[in-house]
Every structure is written in C-alpha cells, then in structure tokens.
C-alpha cells in the first residue's frame, strides 16, 4: 500500500510538470559520476549516439563521485526531480528497487536475455536477480585486480602471489626502507568494503548468509581484517592510503604510478589509465586465494527512476539500447578496463585477437569464474556504509580488534532492525 502511493505520487508529480523536468520530446538527461579518462569515454559514446541517430538528444551532467551522485539521486527522487537515466553501484540496487523508486525496464528484457552476459547483468549479479523485474542494466562492471610493477618484481626475482602467504612474503621483500622512512612499500590497497569482501570470500565466508541474516563472514571476515592489519602493522609492508572513499583509491593509483608502492589492489576500471601513465612495465594479476579464489563484482548499473514516462522514457530506452549494443559495450570496455557486457561484442573482440594482444584485459574476465553474487538485500547498502566501512577503517588504521569491531558492526545492525547471525 505504501509503495504504491509513493509511486503514484512520483508519477503524479512528474506528469504535473513539477520539478525541473523541462525536457522537450526526444530529450533525456543523464546523470553520471565519472571523472577523468572514463568520463571522456562516456562522453564519446554519447557523441556516437547522437551521430547514429537524430531523434534522441542526451544532456549529460557530472554529479561528483558515486556517493555524491547517490545523494543527488535520492534527494531528486524525494522531490520528483530526477534524471531520465543514471547509474548506481550494485549494492544499492535492491534498496532502490524495493523502495519502489526505480522503473522496471520490461521493454528491454528480451534483448538483455539474448545478449548480455548473465553474470554481469542483474540476473547473475544478485542472488535471485533473474526472478525479479528488470531494474538494472550493467554498465561499467569490474572486479578487483592486482596491478604490479613488473620492473620491480623482475629486479627482485619475484612473481605475483597466488596465495595470501605469498602475498605477505612478496610485499615484505619489495618494501624498501631508508632509515625511518619507507621509500617504497610492497603493497597498498584502499581500506574499502569491496576489497574486504574479496578477502572475506577468499577466506571462505559470505557477508550475508543464505537465509538473509547478516553474518559479516564470521571468522572469515575477521581473518580478512587481520590480513590487512598484519601487513600494515606487523610486516609494515603495506601502506594504508590517506583519505576517505574515492580519495583513497586516487591516492593508491598516484602512489603506484609514482613508484612509491610495488603492488596494489584496485579496480580493473583503471587499467587503461594506469597503462597510459605508468613509466614502468605494468603487470596485471588475479587476486590470490586463501582457501578459495573469490572476487565481488563492482561498478555500476544503469537505472531509470520511477515516474519517467512518455517521450522521455522512450528516449531513455533508446539510449540504453545503444549503450548495451556490442559496439558501444566494446568501445567502453576496451578504452577503460571495465568488462565488455555484450556477449556478441566479446566474441567479436576474441575474433579480432584483442585479448591476445591485450592479455591484461582478460584478467578480470577470467576472474568472473570466481565472482560472488550480491544478495538481493535492501539493507546491503546500509550494512556497507554505516556498519562495516567505518569500522574497517577503525580496525585497520587504529589497530582495534577485528572480531570486536565486526561484533560491534553486527550489534549496530541489530539496533537498526536488521537480523544478524553467525556464519555457516
């Protein structure tokens, strides 16, 4: 009953012309949250779209980073002033969908089933994703990968690690100190939810159990935290990057490019950027395992806010179709490092020998074999932002007890009315 009235309200607002929806027929607005190089590629694609047809015109607006963009979307939803299309991180899709603020994209279901890689689309990215209406189309999809400085590794006669123990050895070997100051760190990684999830999986756990209770990986979650803590405080081979959210990711990239760190974990999304700017030979490797290989998927999905109707909706759908087409998906992927989401497109790339010539682009695709789906849990986002992320920082940077921190996180979730439980 509640959700229904919300949707009606939004629809009414939209048709009543409230909010700044002053779009002429054939126009649509796109809110995006990329900067730098990836932004250029996106705008290129928009230009291509305009070149390929003349009925639809896209007005793209930059809204900051993922989280700022999410803030903008939410406040926009709140007053009925939303874009036609925007993109959001996977973890927040169930929340928005269940709150009834996304438009189901039924018109595109057939095409998606036919050509989009199910592992990357809604169907495979969420447990039970294909049992629900289609809300999200994969746009920039990634996995975390390990980038390493080939020159530094060759110098030390090392190979990229395949298990956690090797990772510690390699990082220690590559750390160079000059008195009190560390000239080069062995390893760096943003202290972020995404990478913790990866390690949690590698240690054999799941963040949310099959019955929906939030276990935060139980022992595996603690092990993941301890791995970082050991490398930072005991081995002193891992540099914790400064800044919060995406500032930390930026800093990790800068440190790597400047030669201050020999190996980093970050998104495959930066592959093109790092390749272009590295003054050394760049190596890309899959993440190591502890008891198994495991990576989460990342990046964003295109969504259309509820209440978008008529000519605007048609325009939005046309744009989405274009972005999902093999040519566009390939252009996006090959110019950034994200994965090509169109199966036809991927076949074309194989046929052209793209992956043979650029094996680095294949690393993330190969890792898909170990990709873990997100639970379709509306509280997933809250778990990430409120319960876990701040405590990750605390545990790692302030050397607090990992088990205690995660127990605290679970307690805070219980306070918020979210059911928690033990792993297994």
């Amino acid at each position, binding site marked *: 009953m509640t959700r229904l009235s919300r949707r009606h309200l939004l629809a009414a607002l939209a048709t009543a*012309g*409230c*909010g*700044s929806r002053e779009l002429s027929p054939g126009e649509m*607005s796109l*809110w995006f*949250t*990329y*900067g*730098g*190089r*990836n*932004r250029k590629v996106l705008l290129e694609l928009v230009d291509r779209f305009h070149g390929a047809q003349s009925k639809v015109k896209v*007005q793209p*607006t*930059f*809204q*900051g*980073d993922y989280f700022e963009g999410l803030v*903008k979307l939410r*406040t*926009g939803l*709140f*007053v*009925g*002033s939303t*874009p036609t299309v925007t993109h959001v991180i996977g973890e927040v899709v169930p929340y928005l969908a269940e709150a009834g603020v996304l438009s189901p994209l039924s018109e595109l279901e057939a095409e998606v089933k036919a050509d989009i890689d199910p592992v990357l689309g809604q169907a495979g990215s969420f447990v039970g994703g294909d049992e629900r209406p289609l809300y999200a189309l994969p746009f920039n999809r990634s996995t975390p990968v390990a980038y390493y400085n080939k020159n530094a590794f060759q110098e030390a006669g090392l190979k990229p690690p395949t298990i956690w123990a090797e990772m510690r050895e390699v990082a220690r070997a590559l750390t160079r100190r000059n008195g009190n100051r560390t000239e080069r760190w062995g390893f760096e990684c943003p202290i972020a939810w995404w990478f913790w999830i990866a390690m949690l999986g590698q240690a054999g756990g799941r963040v949310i159990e099959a019955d929906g209770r939030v276990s935060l990986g139980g022992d595996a979650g603690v092990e993941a935290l301890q791995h970082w803590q050991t490398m930072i405080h005991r081995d002193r081979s891992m540099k914790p990057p400064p800044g919060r959210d*995406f*500032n930390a*990711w*930026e800093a990790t*990239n*800068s440190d790597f*490019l*400047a030669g201050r760190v020999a190996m980093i974990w970050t998104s495959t*999304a*930066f592959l093109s*950027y790092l390749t272009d*700017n590295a003054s050394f030979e760049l190596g890309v490797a899959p993440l190591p395992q502890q008891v198994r290989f495991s990576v989460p998927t990342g990046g964003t999905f295109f969504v259309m806010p509820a209440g978008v109707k008529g000519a605007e909706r048609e325009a939005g759908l046309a744009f989405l179709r274009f972005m999902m087409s093999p040519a566009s998906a390939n252009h996006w992927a090959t110019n950034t490092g994200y994965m090509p989401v169109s199966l036809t497109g991927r076949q074309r790339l194989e046929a052209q020998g793209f992956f043979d010539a650029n094996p680095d682009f294949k690393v993330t695709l190969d890792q898909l074999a170990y990709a873990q789906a997100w639970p379709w849990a509306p509280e997933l986002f809250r778990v990430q932002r409120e319960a876990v992320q701040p405590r990750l920082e605390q545990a790692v940077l302030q050397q607090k007890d990992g088990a205690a921190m995660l127990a605290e996180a679970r307690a805070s979730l219980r306070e918020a009315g979210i059911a928690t439980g033990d792993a297994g």
Partner: protein
Amino acid sequence: MTRRASMLSTVLLVLAGALWVGPYLWMVSTSFKSMQEIVKAPAVPIPSSLDPSAYAAVFEAVPVGRFFVNTLVMAVAIALLQIALALPAGYALAKLRFTGRRAAFGLVLACLIIPPQVTFVPVFTMLGSAGLVNTMAALVLPFGVSAFGTFLVRQAMLSVPDSIIEAARLDGASETYIIYRVLGPIVQPTLAALFLFSFVYHYSDYFWPLMMTTDDRVRTLPLAVALLREQGTGARWNIIMAGNVILSLPIFALFVVAQRRILRAVTARALS
C-alpha cells in the same frame, strides 16, 4: 616606537608575509606547472616553464563563463534582496515603537546560528514541490534576509535625525517612499558596505548550490572547482590550483578595488 617594538613588528611582518602571501604564490606557481614537474620536483618554487595547459584544461572541463555568470547573478541577487528587506526592517526596529520589537530582534539574532545544513531537507521539500529546485530562486530566496545586514541598517538608521522623517511625513510622503527614497540614500554607505559583504560572502556559497542544483543551468563556480578533483585518476594539482586561481581572482580584484568599503562593512557590526 621603541626599537624592540619595531623589531617585533618586523618579525611579525615577515612571519605573516610568509604564512599568508606564501600559499597564494604557491597556488599560482603550481597552476603553471605540468603534472610531470609536480610529481618529480614538487618543491621547486618557480616552474621551469610557464605551462598554461592547466588553465586550458579547466576551461575544457567546466563551462567557466556560464558558471561565473551564474555565481555573479546569484550573489548580486542575494545582496540586493537583502538590502530590499533590511531597509524596512531596520527602519521599523530603529525608529518605530511597537510591541514585539524585542521579539523580532531576538528572532533575527537566533537565526544567525542556524547553518544551512540544518534547514536543508524541509527547504528542499518546499522548493521541490514548488518546482523551484535547480533554479536561481532556490539559490537566492533562502538567503533573502541577512541578520548582519538588518543590524547594520538599524544602526545606521538610529543616527538619522527624526526630524528628517517627520518633515517627509508632513510633506505627505508615504512610509515606503521615506524608507526607500529618503532614508535609503542617506544610509547609502551602509548599504554599499552590506552589498559588498553579502556579495563576497555568497559568492563562495558551496553547500547550498551543491545540493540545490542538478545540472549546469544554474550551477556556481565554487561547486565546479570542487568537482575538479575528479575521482580515480589521481589528483591533478595543477588543474585544481588553476581552478582555484580562476575562482579567487574576481574576489581579489574586488578586494583591491573596494578594500576600504569591505573593511568598513566587516568592522561596522563590531562597533555597534
């Protein structure tokens, strides 16, 4: 002045010079460096060659002209609106006896301490249902009253002799005429001060335009410069500093030209 005091002054001068002029010079210097230079030799004060590509990059990434105009329009509109509202209010608070005068005074005072983050959600809802989000009105209306300005005008009005008002009344002038056409010109220096102060203050508005604008139509320059820290590709300090220079230049220019007026505006409240 004694020699010791003189020496102390000189020491302070050097210290202040280094701490307050230094950073600006550094900002300008960085804006003319290339990214490679910044990475390799960050401490060199003067770039080996003046590289204006950072500025070009700013203009490419941001519609500087449009945002600058938006910022100007917004700041001027706010300043004018505040003057328009402060004149009658200052007049009533200064010259007219009425019950509730103290309460009105207190209300204005109390609102001084409420920052925009606190009022945001309800105001956003209101403006949203009126269809005003992402419009200039949303950026201007909430700041239509300046507590500071109201006090200033009140102060200035207090020193205007009652006889002028009485004479005007005898001449048959309406109160509105008196406020805007008689008293306005008399307190013109105060109004100019208020205008300058408000303009400079709201030129740098960040939070409100950040939340109230969804696209480039009415976005302001501080926002755009803050967004120059594009994510994931490493902070390009030369571009960010170039954006800073572009953002701050108009204010510096204004300061050089209208220094005394601005100073008077800031100090006026303290002496009231």
